[in-house]
């Protein structure tokens, strides 16, 4: 009795919210958010410079009503993110199903190669794609961006769906097959519904990564196929306009909404990113 109560005190002591690790966690989160607050603050500043003059919405007016090139870039980004995200989700999820439960030749090759694009520095993926496309004489444009984005998204889908499959009882599938379900029926009625969270988080991850990528896109984009990050880059490089601040706020809010919609999957995504 005595022993267990002293034990409890000891445990409570360790869970003090102001312990060193909690303080560092607080500092990390502050560090992560501070720059975002600064841009948001300046997006409401009337002056073009960094000195605060008075609150104004003029950069938001500019962003929404007089930046057609920016919206064209956003449109390109959205098209690439959705198409490459969809392709990566279908190919990656199928491969995860195939590899998890079956033994076959070439399995080790596919499983190993599927990790690499995730860890290879982006510059290398970009350069190798650029040299590859120039070698097969494929003109750079929306299609080459689509191919590049699908390639770097595939590993994430593969991993996220794979993690979901680990929690799934294979005997359910055997049961379905024993009861006479065909391969397609098993896939659509048993496997896909039960791994839907993995598929959705894979798709979400792909869309986010695709919307966010600058380096690889920089190499494989052609004239007129610029995405939003490329447009932001040219804004930063050649004369900063506070419109970027307004755009940042819109994008931060977009990110928060996306994270909120998919909050159920946050942990799975964290586990594999």
């Amino acid at each position, binding site marked *: 009795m005595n022993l267990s109560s002293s034990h409890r005190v000891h445990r409570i002591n360790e869970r003090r919210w102001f312990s060193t690790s909690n303080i560092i966690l607080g500092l990390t989160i502050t560090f992560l958010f501070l720059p975002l607050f600064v841009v948001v603050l300046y997006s409401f500043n009337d002056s073009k410079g960094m000195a605060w003059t008075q609150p104004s919405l003029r950069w938001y007016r500019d962003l929404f009503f007089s930046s057609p090139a920016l919206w064209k870039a956003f449109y390109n980004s959205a098209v690439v993110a959705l198409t490459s995200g969809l392709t990566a989700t279908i190919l990656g999820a199928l*491969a995860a199903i*195939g590899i998890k439960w*079956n033994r076959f030749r070439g399995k080790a090759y596919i499983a190993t190669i599927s990790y690499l694009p995730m860890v290879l520095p982006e510059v290398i993926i970009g350069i190798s794609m650029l040299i590859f496309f120039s070698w097969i004489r494929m003109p750079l444009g929306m299609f080459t961006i689509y191919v590049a984005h699908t*390639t770097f998204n595939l590993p994430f889908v593969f991993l996220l769906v794979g993690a979901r499959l680990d929690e799934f009882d294979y005997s359910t599938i055997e049961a379905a097959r024993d009861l006479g379900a065909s391969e397609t029926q098993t896939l659509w009625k048993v496997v896909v519904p039960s791994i839907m969270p993995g598929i959705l988080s894979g798709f979400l991850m792909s869309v986010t990564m695709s919307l966010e990528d600058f380096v690889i896109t920089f190499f494989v984009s052609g004239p007129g196929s610029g995405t939003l990050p490329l447009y932001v880059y040219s804004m930063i490089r050649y004369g900063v306009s506070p419109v970027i601040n307004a755009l940042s706020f819109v994008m931060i809010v977009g990110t928060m909404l996306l994270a909120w919609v998919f909050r159920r999957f946050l942990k799975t995504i964290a*586990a594999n990113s």
Partner: protein
Amino acid sequence: MSGQSRREARRGLAYSAPMGLWFTIFFVLPLTIILIYSFLKRGLYGGVTGEFSLVAYQQMFNPSFGRIVLRTIWISIVSTFGCFVFALPAGYAMARSKHQTLLLFLIIIPFWTNSLIRIYAWISILSREGFLNQMLMKLGIINEGLQMIYTQGSVILVLIYMFVPFAVLPLFTTIDKFDFSLLDAARDLGATKLQALVKVLFPQIRGGMVTALIFTFIPIFGSYTVPLLVGGKDSTMIGNIIVDQVNKTRNWPLAAAFSVVLTFLSMIGVLWMLSSNRHSEKLNAASKLQDTTQQGVEKRVHLHHQDDGGKA
């Protein structure tokens, strides 16, 4: 049995061949081309000629590149270390917290926000007329703006900023699987707090630590945008050489040779990560086994006590 395995082989291939094919054409083939290009002679206006040559690899050891390679190693080690100083305690605190979803939210939102926007935010903080200098001047600490941006320090700071989440997330997920009562047990057995962390926690989360290391060190080592936008002459990195060799100097074999070296480095990292994750899985399984045994013992002790109570 053989029919079963043949069916398995056919099914496995049918499901995973599309991805395998995609990677072979759009990933393995491009990397192979890079490898071949690194051994060829450069063309007059970019591209390559068909002649074999080791010039690209010799050029890598040219002193001006050598300095950049050493600098890249230095910047990457310091930034990775900086990420860990934040990430290890932060991941631990998150794993022990009751508000995990909220905290994950707070880590993931900046992480998902466009990286260029985040770099731009640092430009507006660190530049001469930027937020930080203005604050310092308003507070009367300095009289004129300090040169903070376009230095090696600003590159390291922004790299830490960009890659902290890459270290926090894997550390959080592995520590989350850890059984914290083991720490209490170590403390009860007389270990100090630090000893308990180093000898009990760290071996168990080795896989997560290696994953965090690989996911921060490799992208930092190959980073291009951060040194380009917030760095000066003293902070060019290998990524910048590669891009310059492709776009400006048009020495494709040299860019390819640098890429080959970076690729090999990354592959070694991945293999290390895979093997140590397997190692941690084994350790975790062992500790789970211990758990169940312990629970069994506790249950028996509990029953025994009840028995005693009944008799009394």
